[in-house]
């Protein structure tokens, strides 16, 4: 995938493994992904497909014993006025070092699925937001408090001054996620990673949070990597979508292409599985045949072949499909479109 002027994060053949007693789990394998400045990239897949680990790698917060086996994560750093540019390789940094800490939380921030447990129960919301500000900005406590207050007001939390001194248990789920967004955005990061940020919330709150994120994304001009298993959410917010299956990106392209012209059989089936009001009355919900193989039963060849309806015998089960370009910014890993292999 080509490098261009607007690239912000450029992941090249990333491989993340978890060496466990039972064997090695290859959580992320051969992932290439470019997120451009200001772009909303949706990353979609079932549980265990590697979407979360990819995001954690960008932050270098992959939980033990996981580690980056090889690959690059290039961050195109730019000074606020846009004059100075440099490229740093996040994958080479010590995850506990000071170098990564000057980037983590400042240039890339992350919000998580569970707003209920994202905050420490023993510290005030204000304390936790101010901590992020004091770590990365050259301000004193009073100024940090002012910034925190403005951010809470910005994410539409009423009464921000009083709210700063409250504890997480005094916030509702939706309010906590708003506070989480406020905390992540205090340092105006170039990339916000959102891991299922609306999944734990009820539907009306979900819509509010999504609207808020879209609004803030436009205001701050940041890129968002939106990780979810919910294609409906992606359709609302993302410009581009990467579909992951068992640690690999099987299809990537602009949202419109993915939704209207899906190429990979897996993407096709995922879209078919979205329930539609009215159209499916009285019918069973569509499900993809089979189940995701366990982490130690990864099939050889194309990892999706056991569940694929369009399997090419002696090919899909033997060889690893390479990446084929099928349109403008649209690529797919499937033998239906090319005979290219991607052997280890």
């Amino acid at each position, binding site marked *: 995938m080509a490098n261009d002027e607007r690239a912000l994060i450029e992941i090249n053949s990333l491989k993340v493994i978890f060496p466990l007693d039972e064997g090695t789990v290859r959580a992320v394998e051969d992932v290439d992904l470019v997120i451009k400045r200001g772009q909303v990239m949706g990353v979609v897949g079932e549980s265990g497909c590697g979407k979360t680990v990819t995001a954690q790698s960008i*932050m270098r*917060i992959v*939980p033990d014993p996981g580690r980056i086996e090889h690959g690059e994560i290039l961050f195109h750093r730019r000074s606020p006025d846009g004059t100075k540019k440099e490229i740093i390789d996040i994958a080479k940094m010590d995850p*506990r070092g*000071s170098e990564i*800490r*000057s*980037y*983590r*939380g*400042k240039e890339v*921030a*992350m919000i*998580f699925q*569970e707003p209920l*447990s*994202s*905050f*420490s*129960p*023993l*510290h*005030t919301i204000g304390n*936790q937001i101010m*901590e*992020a500000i004091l*770590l*990365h900005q050259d301000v004193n406590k009073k100024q940090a408090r002012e910034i925190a207050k403005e951010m809470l007001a910005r994410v539409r939390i009423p009464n921000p001054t009083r709210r700063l001194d409250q*504890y997480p*248990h*005094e916030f509702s789920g939706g309010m906590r996620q708003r506070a*989480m967004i406020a*905390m992540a955005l205090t340092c105006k990061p170039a990339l916000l990673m959102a891991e299922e940020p609306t999944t734990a919330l009820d539907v009306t709150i979900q819509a509010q949070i999504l609207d808020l994120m879209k609004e803030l994304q436009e205001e701050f001009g940041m890129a968002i990597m939106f990780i979810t298993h919910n294609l409906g959410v992606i359709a609302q917010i993302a410009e581009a979508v990467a579909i992951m299956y068992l640690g690999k990106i099987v299809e990537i392209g602009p949202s419109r292409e993915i939704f209207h012209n899906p190429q990979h059989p897996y993407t096709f089936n995922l879209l078919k599985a979205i329930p539609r009001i009215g159209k499916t009355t009285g019918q069973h919900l569509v499900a993809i045949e089979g189940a995701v193989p366990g982490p130690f039963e990864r099939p050889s060849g194309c990892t999706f072949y056991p569940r694929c309806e369009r399997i090419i015998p002696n090919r899909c089960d033997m060889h690893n499909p390479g990446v084929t370009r099928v349109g403008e910014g649209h690529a797919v890993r499937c033998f239906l479109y090319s005979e290219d292999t991607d052997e280890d």
Partner: protein
Amino acid sequence: MRAFLLRRFLIMIGMLALLSLIVFIILELPPGDFAERHVYQLKSIGIFVTEEDLLNYRHQFGLDRPWPERYLRWITNIVTRGNFGLSLIYRKPVTDVIGERLGFTAILAISAVILLYGLAIPIGIYSAIHQYSIGDYTFTILGYVGIAIPNFMLALVLLYISVTVFGTNVGGLFSPEYLDAPWSWARLIDFLKHLWIPTIILGTSGTAFQIRTMRATLLDEKNKLYVTVARAKGLPEGRLLMKYPVRVALNPIVSTMGWELTRVISGAPIVAFVLALPDTGPLFLRALLDEDIYLGGSLLMIYSALTIFGTFLSDIMLALLDPRIRQGEKV
């Protein structure tokens, strides 16, 4: 916070009242009384005693009154005048008999508890961060050895060491030359030289359990989402650990502090007996054996009151530590 403290305080007072009643009843339960013990002792040294003498003694000790009346008089005197009654063995007020000894018991219990947490909390943190490392296993084994060795056994071993290695004299809290001397620097230093043995014995017996508690809670907490969130902010690991998971993990440690104090205090008499410490331990044992209900009852009451007070203190600490408790669980 104020409502919480007030509620806890009232509960404490109620508990103390109930406790005094239970203490008194327990001491009344064994068959016989101090008058019978006294008569028996007189007989054993060859003095002839009649049935009438026994009744006289009983009257003289006030033991012929019904127990509710005796209880009321005992507890009223304690509350209004700080008078714990007369020790029947020593024929002196209980407060005089206990006197300085209670101070030693308190110092011993407090230093044991400080040692216990001073060891357990840092070791627990170390073990959780370096899970399954050699250090973790070493502390685990040492901890279990500490649990497995009975206190009196450890007391004998440490006495042996103190005599052979350090050349200090055996047992007690003072060397003979300082026994009845007034307080001075030299006497204090001598006291500290003797204090370490019972402190180690009482302190280490509970260390292993608290290490395991700290280790297990911290292992749970350090993988929680709020820790990842804090890490994602760019917080350095050390600060991160102390500010977030360690503070949360202190919760069970602090809330069981009251029990730990109980355990140390109830373990103390046996150790004091083996080491011949001039604290309240041997006194308590003797009072129980001779059915001196006022001395025994007062000591039991003081021990229990310390425990309840310890629990009250741990409640206050918990409230300071955790806003959810302070604000009365509005979740």
